């Protein structure tokens, strides 16, 4: 595997499968009374967040702590970052403190790539979401969830619905799901479909209803309410009517199909409460899986070649 996780486009099928398999292995410790492994003892993981995201941060924090890493949370709010300190100077500070891995959330597309490649730091960089570019661990946890619900991803049909244009989740999922052999269909109004989407490894549609009956999974994206003010769509009601997933639409899905959402949801806009809380919804499962997948990523980037979890016997022998 590479030294950083910046984009799912960088992952081969073997890399991605290794992460998912490792995550499955690591997920087993969640069932133990003591949910902690000594694997990353003495290593320091910095959560560097230039944009608020409590959910993603605590998921990474939990993952790192379960691997016994020391965790430092560095948030743009209330730190020197908001006083005008540059990404570079922040990076040099972290380098001087000896961070082994930096988990970075940045409002600018390419923020993580820059941190990894500008020559400011030597640590491994994990992209926890950069602008409207990518959010690779979200895609990995989505793939993990799909795999556990549907078995293999090969040939499975996944719909991604909503504000694809501004979605880092969609970009990461398109690359990863294509790499793992799934067929992705993007669904969005033309105003929220990326330019040149026909060059992406997926198909696309401006209508949701004809797509639904063919899907094994449908992933609903969060729609920012301010997009309405920017004239991407006329009203929330119209958006919801054309692209929202409500109970009647859910009935058009095949029996086995699942409903996903990366969160946080706008209940009543892109997804109705009834759908979000249904048994087909994997939304809370996705959160749980997020911790395992992030443990796997940190382990593989920092842990080296040894198995992620020793057997019970080996541990007993130590």
């Amino acid at each position: 595997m590479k030294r950083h996780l910046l984009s799912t486009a960088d992952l081969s099928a073997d890399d991605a499968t290794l992460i998912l398999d490792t995550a499955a292995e690591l997920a087993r410790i969640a069932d133990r009374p003591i949910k902690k492994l000594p694997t990353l003892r003495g290593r320091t993981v910095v959560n560097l967040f230039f944009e608020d995201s409590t959910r993603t941060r605590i998921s990474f924090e939990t993952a790192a702590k379960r691997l016994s890493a020391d965790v430092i949370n560095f948030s743009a709010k209330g730190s020197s970052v908001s006083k005008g300190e540059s990404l570079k100077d922040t990076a040099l500070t972290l380098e001087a403190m000896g961070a082994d891995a930096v988990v970075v959330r940045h409002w600018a597309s390419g923020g993580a790539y820059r941190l990894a490649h500008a020559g400011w730091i030597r640590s491994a960089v994990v992209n926890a979401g950069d602008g409207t570019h990518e959010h690779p661990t979200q895609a990995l946890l989505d793939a993990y969830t799909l795999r556990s619900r549907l078995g293999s991803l090969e040939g499975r049909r996944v719909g991604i619905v909503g504000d694809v244009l501004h979605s880092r989740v969609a970009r990461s999922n398109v690359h990863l799901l294509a790499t793992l052999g799934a067929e992705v269909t993007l669904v969005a109004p033309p105003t929220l479909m990326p330019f040149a989407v026909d060059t992406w490894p997926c198909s696309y549609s401006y209508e949701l209803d004809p797509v639904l009956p063919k899907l094994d999974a449908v992933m609903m994206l969060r729609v920012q309410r301010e997009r309405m003010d920017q004239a991407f769509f006329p009203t929330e009601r119209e958006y919801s009517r054309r692209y929202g997933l409500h109970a009647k639409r859910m009935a058009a899905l095949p029996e086995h199909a699942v409903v996903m959402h990366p969160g946080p949801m706008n209940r009543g806009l892109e997804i109705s409460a009834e759908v979000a809380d249904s048994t087909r919804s994997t939304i809370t499962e996705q959160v749980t899986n997020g911790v395992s997948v992030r443990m796997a990523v940190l382990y593989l980037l920092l842990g080296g070649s040894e198995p992620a979890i020793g057997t019970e016997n080996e541990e007993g022998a130590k």
Partner: protein
Amino acid sequence: MNDGNWTIRGARILGGDVRDLHVSDGVFAAEAPAGARVVEADGLIALPGLVDLHTHLREPGREDAETVATGSRAAAAGGYTAVHAMANTDPVADTAGVVEQVWRLGREAGYCDVQPVGAVTVGIAGERLAELGAMADSAARVRVFSDDGHCVSDAALMRRALEYVKAFGGVVAQHAQEPRLTEGAQMNEGEVSSVLGLRGWPAVAEEAIIARDVLLAAHTGSRLHVCHLSTAGSVELVRWAKSKGFPVTAEVTPHHLLLTDDLVRGYDPVYKVNPPLRTQADVEAVRQGLADGTIDVVATDHAPHPVEAKDCEWAVAAMGMLGLETALSVVQHTMVDTGLLDWSGVADRMSVRAAQIGSLDGHGRPLEPGEPANLVLLDPAASRVIEPGALHSRSRNTPFAGLKLPGAVHATFLRGTATVLDGKVIDR
């Protein structure tokens, strides 16, 4: 020894016939003057000193990025004998006082003629006309007006500006960028922007303004100059306007002749520029447009920025690239070595027409007795790897770093005075 007396032996004039050039008291002479210094120019090409229509010298206001002195040194090193200093300084060059200051600084530095460009609107804010007449009548004799960096997007204001400058033979140089279509734009809107998640700067935002402006130029009968056009569609529009006989000229930058938006994939802000790097199809189209004369000139849009403005995230980085010291090499590489343009064509696009558009007397003239001795000697057989640290600009933001480019400036003469000799800038 008279510094103004030279014999340049054996240069190929505009890349053609080999002939000796004689310089006496700042002008070309028919015969060798007494006590002339000799420059052996075997294998070198002689062109009229280059003229840049689009240079950011940053002074006053951003002397940490460039000064008139450092920028005009860089210009001389690149073979230029005249540059047009853009108006977006701090304070903006929107009064006679500021343009005269820049003009005077240029004269004091002495490396090339620094011809200030005046702002079209007060503070380049796009709201009301600056005192264009006062700038035209000042010692700086401003003839080119531009809000470069900003588009004069208000159609009525643009019309008035075009009309008004007719009184003193001026030209409005438009930065064509429809503002509403480019809010927060980070790079060319296309396949790459969509994958990178960077807000797109669509070609239509440039073309829509050019289409409007060429029609305004026709309607008012005033001269329009299109700055740094970058798309295939823009070339088509200018070609159409010229076919109708509209009074329109256009420029392209060296970077738009060579680089594409594919380079943005690494998020390195050295490739961030406005208008943005476009696609390979656009590169082909602007080369073709320059070759057939649709595009009149190569202008550098030399835009120095301090290190910290580029050593950061893409979104917060400044837009712009250095250009003065690499322009001739890029043009040789993209136009001459590809057979699209011969050296007399290079003289036309990098000197003659630029001087005409800028109404600069004494530049872009034939290398004939009696004409001012503004001259560049270049070695087309040389090649060099571009090193940011070796440039004369105060800044380092060249997008050509590490590239091997052909050609090297051997000497530059400004009215018979050598500003560059043996490839080295002469301290003044």
